[in-house]
């Protein structure tokens, strides 16, 4: 029921490498969220945007990730220097508003060797 597109579906990187993933939100959804889900089903909020502006982000994202949502281009989330602990499923969600239903994409599964 979601039209959020995430690419790639799978990503394998070595430690220290950059890892970049992209998200195309549903049409007409100005708000985009990124979450990280680990193998224990723990979800961690990373960052959200309204249009091109960052609304909120956690400390880890500010220090180690680069994220943007340019107009007329996919949103992206990039780990600047991958660590083994970054291996997880990265989920993008979009929403019609900041406090509204969030629709999730299928995720990008990152494996850091």
């Amino acid at each position, binding site marked *: 029921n*979601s039209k959020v597109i995430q690419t790639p579906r799978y990503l394998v990187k070595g430690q220290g490498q950059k890892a970049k993933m992209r998200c195309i939100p549903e049409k007409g959804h100005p708000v985009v969220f990124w979450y990280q889900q680990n193998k224990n089903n723990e979800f961690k909020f990373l960052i959200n945007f309204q249009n091109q502006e960052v609304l909120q982000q956690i400390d880890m994202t500010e220090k180690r990730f680069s994220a943007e949502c340019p107009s007329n281009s996919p949103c992206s989330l990039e780990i600047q220097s991958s660590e083994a602990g970054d291996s997880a*499923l990265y989920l993008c969600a979009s929403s019609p508003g900041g406090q*509204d239903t969030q629709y999730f994409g299928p995720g990008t599964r990152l494996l850091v060797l």
Partner: protein
Amino acid sequence: GDQVEQSPSALSLHEGTGSALRCNFTTTMRAVQWFRKNSRGSLINLFYLASGTKENGRLKSAFDSKERYSTLHIRDAQLEDSGTYFCAAEATGNTGKLIFGLGTTLQVQP
């Protein structure tokens, strides 16, 4: 920090029976969403509630912000209901970020 405690962690039902999943919140939440993870691993939206109850087919959900809980009732369970169910809540005064429970793995048996 704000937490969402989801129970049970695992549930087994026979076809045609029903049960309830519950999420308790450690603080007042503004809204709750319920999801089911499908066989391809995607999160499927079931409900979004800012208050009260909603029903969709054999599923019914309730959210009580004051009492800090939400429930998801499944009746007449079918084999295709098997999967992992998550609740996720929005804290008040936030930018909409969701705080997830750890999920309930439901297995429906013939």
